[in-house]
C-alpha cells in the first residue's frame, strides 16, 4: 500500500485509486462539485485543486492517481486562492435565486461560496439569460441558469441508468444542460439527478416550492415500497413527511433509490387514515374504543380456536409489518391454533437494478417468522378456497395486499363463508367495509423495528412521525390480543422482542439493534446462493 502525506500526516492509502477519495477518507475536506463516489471522474469543476510537492502547478485531486511518497497540501495560500478564483468563475453566471431555490440550505455552491469564496466579483457584464423552469420530464424540471455544468447528472444517465437523456449542448461559454425534445428525462431513477445536482438546476417536481430544507428533520429508515429495502432518510416537519431521500448503503442501494419508492410517502400524511377502531353494530361499522375492539376480536379468535381444525382461525399476514410485530403476530396465531396462515404480497414490475417485484418491505421477514405455509403450499388461493368450504370461522386480514393479489370472485366467496372478519389496515378500504372489526394500523414512518430485505439483510427503521396519542402500533395490538387469549402477560418493546427473535429463529441468532446499526445485518444464507445485490 502506498503511503502519502496529506497536510503533514503520513497516511496509508489503497493503491491504484485517485487522490480525492483518499483525502476525503482521511477526514480532510477538499471541496468538490463534479466528483461523486459512485460516478466516473469528470474533472470539470476544478474545485478540488491541491498542491503536490514536485509538481509545478496545482492538480485536481479527483483525477490525480496516487503515487507512493506523494506530499499533498490542501490548505496553502495558493490552493485557497485557486478555490476563490474557481468560485468566482462559477458564480459569474449563477443567478441570485437563493430565496426561491429549493436547493438553498443544502446547496454546495452556497456552502462553498461562504467557506471558500470571495465576496467580490470582477465582472460587470450581465448574467446569461437561459431557460428557467424547463419541463424536462414527468418528475423533473430544469433551471439552466443555475447549472454549473459539473455533468454529474449527465454521467448518472450514462453510467447508472444507461438512458442518456441529459447532455451538455453547445461549447464553451454557450454550454447548456438540456434534453432532446423527443427524449424527456423519464427513467425510473430520474429524481436521483436532483439529489446529486450540487446546485438547484435539477429539481424534483414533487418537492418544488414545498418547504425550505432547513426545516426538515431527517430520520434514517428503509423504503417500504419494495423488497429491495433501499436505505433512506425520511424528512419530516410539523409531524408530516415531506420527502424521502436515499441514504448511502453500498450493500443495498449505493446512493440511489427509484422514483416510485421516493414518491410513495403521501399515505403517511393522509388525513383520511383510520385512527380509531371500528366495530360492526346493527349492521354498520361504528367508531369504538380500543379496549372494546380488542375484546371483540379476541373473543372471536378464541371462539374460533375452540371449534378446532374443521372451523378455525385463518390469517392473511401483512408484509408491511416489522419483524418484531410479525413475531408477536405469529405467537398470537399460534395461541389461537390458526390453521391457515399466508402472506399476501402485491407483485409489480421489476428491473435488474433496484426495483424488486414484491411490493412490500418485509415479505422475507414474514416468511422467516414462520407465517407462511411451506413453499409450494396452497398459498393465498388455497386459504380462500378453504374459507369458501367453510373451514375458517374467523379470518384475520392484516395489511392491504390481499385485495390486489386475490381473485375477486374467490375472495367474495371466501368472505361469505367467514363468520368473523378482522381487518387491520392503515385505510378504511373496501375490505374493511366488510369487516366485523377494523383495527387501525401504523405506517413505517411511525414505528421502530426491523425489515428483512429480499437478500436477507435486516435493516432498522426509526420513528419519524409521532402517531396520535393513544394509538397503539401493530405489535401492541397483537400483544393486547394475546393478553385476552392466553394466560401470560404480554407487552411490546421492540428491543425485547428482537431478543426473543434471536433466541427463537435460528437464522436470526445473535441479532440485536446495535448489530443491525445503520447499515444492516446480513442473515447467514444456508443455501449459499446469494441473490444479486448482496455483497456482504
Amino acid at each position, binding site marked *: 500500500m502506498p503511503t502519502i502525506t496529506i497536510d503533514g500526516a503520513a497516511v496509508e492509502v489503497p493503491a491504484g485509486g485517485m487522490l480525492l477519495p483518499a483525502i476525503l477518507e482521511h477526514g480532510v475536506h477538499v471541496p468538490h462539485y463534479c466528483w461523486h463516489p459512485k460516478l466516473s471522474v469528470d474533472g470539470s469543476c476544478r474545485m478540488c485543486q491541491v498542491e503536490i510537492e514536485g509538481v509545478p502547478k496545482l492538480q485536481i485531486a479527483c483525477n490525480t492517481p496516487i503515487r507512493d511518497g506523494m506530499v499533498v497540501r490542501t490548505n496553502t495560500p495558493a490552493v485557497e486562492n485557486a478555490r476563490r478564483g474557481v468560485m468566482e468563475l462559477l458564480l459569474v453566471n449563477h443567478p441570485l435565486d437563493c*430565496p*426561491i431555490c429549493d436547493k*438553498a440550505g443544502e446547496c454546495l455552491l452556497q456552502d462553498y461560496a461562504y467557506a471558500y469564496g470571495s465576496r467580490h466579483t470582477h465582472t460587470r457584464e450581465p448574467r446569461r439569460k437561459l431557460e*428557467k423552469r424547463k419541463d424536462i420530464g414527468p418528475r423533473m424540471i430544469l433551471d439552466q441558469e443555475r447549472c454549473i455544468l459539473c455533468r454529474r447528472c449527465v454521467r448518472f444517465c450514462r453510467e447508472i441508468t444507461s438512458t442518456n437523456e441529459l447532455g451538455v449542448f453547445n461549447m464553451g461559454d454557450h454550454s447548456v444542460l438540456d434534453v432532446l425534445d423527443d427524449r424527456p428525462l423519464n427513467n425510473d431513477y430520474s429524481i436521483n439527478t436532483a439529489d446529486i445536482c450540487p446546485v438547484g438546476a435539477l429539481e424534483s417536481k414533487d418537492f418544488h*416550492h*414545498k*418547504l*425550505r430544507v432547513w*426545516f426538515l428533520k431527517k430520520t434514517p429508515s428503509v423504503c417500504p415500497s419494495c423488497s429491495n429495502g433501499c436505505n433512506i432518510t425520511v424528512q419530516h416537519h410539523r409531524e408530516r413527511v415531506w420527502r424521502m431521500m436515499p441514504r448511502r448503503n453500498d450493500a443495498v442501494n449505493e446512493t440511489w433509490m427509484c422514483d416510485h419508492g421516493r414518491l410513495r410517502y403521501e399515505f403517511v400524511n393522509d388525513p383520511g387514515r383510520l385512527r380509531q377502531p371500528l366495530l360492526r353494530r346493527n349492521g354498520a361499522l361504528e367508531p369504538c374504543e380500543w379496549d372494546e375492539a380488542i375484546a371483540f376480536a379476541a373473543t372471536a379468535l378464541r371462539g374460533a380456536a375452540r371449534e378446532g381444525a374443521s372451523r378455525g382461525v385463518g390469517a392473511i399476514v401483512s408484509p408491511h409489518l416489522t419483524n418484531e410485530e410479525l413475531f408477536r403476530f405469529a405467537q398470537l396465531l399460534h395461541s389461537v391454533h390458526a390453521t391457515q396462515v399466508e402472506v399476501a404480497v402485491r407483485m409489480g414490475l421489476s428491473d435488474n437494478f433496484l426495483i424488486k417485484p414484491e411490493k412490500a418491505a418485509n415479505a422475507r421477514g414474514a416468511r422467516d417468522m414462520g407465517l407462511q405455509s411451506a413453499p409450494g403450499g396452497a398459498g393465498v388461493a388455497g386459504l380462500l378456497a378453504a374459507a369458501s368450504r367453510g373451514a375458517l370461522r374467523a379470518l384475520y386480514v392484516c395489511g392491504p395486499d390481499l385485495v390486489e393479489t386475490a381473485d375477486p370472485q374467490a375472495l367474495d366467496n371466501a368472505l361469505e363463508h367467514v363468520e368473523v372478519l378482522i381487518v387491520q389496515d392503515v385505510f378504511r378500504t373496501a375490505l374493511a367495509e366488510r369487516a366485523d372489526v377494523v383495527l387501525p394500523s401504523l405506517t413505517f414512518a411511525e414505528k421502530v423495528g426491523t425489515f428483512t430485505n429480499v437478500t436477507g439483510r435486516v435493516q432498522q427503521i426509526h420513528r419519524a412521525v409521532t402517531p396520535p396519542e393513544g394509538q397503539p402500533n401493530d405489535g401492541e395490538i397483537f400483544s393486547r390480543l394475546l393478553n385476552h387469549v392466553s394466560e401470560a402477560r404480554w407487552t411490546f418493546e421492540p428491543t425485547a422482542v428482537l431478543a426473543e427473535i434471536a433466541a427463537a429463529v435460528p437464522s436470526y441468532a445473535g441479532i440485536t439493534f446495535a448489530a443491525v446499526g445503520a447499515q444492516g445485518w446480513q442473515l447467514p444464507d444456508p443455501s449459499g446462493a446469494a441473490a444479486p445485490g448482496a455483497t456482504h
Partner: protein
Amino acid sequence: MATRTVAVARPSSLRRSWFRSGWAILKGLWVTNRHFMRNLWGFIRRKPTVFTVQFPEERLTHPGAFRGHPVLVQMDNGKERCVACGLCEWACPTDCITIYPAETADEIERHPKVFDIDMSRCMFCGLCEEACPEEAIVMSQTVEIAAFSRRGTLWHKEDLLVPVDQLRDTRLGHIRQSYDQ
C-alpha cells in the same frame, strides 16, 4: 486564602434617612400638585394645557424608525412581494411566523400559499424585517392587535397585506435610508 474585611460606611442615623425620604415625598407631591393646579387653571380658563393624547380618537404620528407589528408589502398589482423564502420564519425568535410556499405562473415563480403571524406571540423585534431579502415584510406604525379570541390574534396573509404606497414614506423609507448608509 486570607480574607480581608473592608468596613463600609453606611448611613447610621435612622433619623437622617427619615428626613431624606420625607423630603423626596414632599418633592414628588409638589410636582404632582403643580401639574394639577396648572391643569385646573387651564380647565377653568377653557384653555387646556394637558398633553395627554385622547388615544383612540387622537393618535400620534411616529417617526419612520418606529416598530409596530409586522405587515406584508402589497405591490401595485395587488399581490404580495413575498417569495416565501422562509428566512423570516427562520429568524423569528418567537416562532410566530408560519409559511407554506407554492408555485405561481409569475416571473418570480414562488409565493406564500399560507403566511400566518401569531400576533399574540410576536414581540415586534423586527428581525423578520432584517432577514427579508425582498423588502416584503416590514414593521408598521400600528401596535393594536387586540382581538376577542386567541384565534383572532392569528393573522393570515389577507390581514397582513398593506399597499406599498402607505409604507413608502414611513418604515420602507427608513429601511432604505438606513441601509444606504
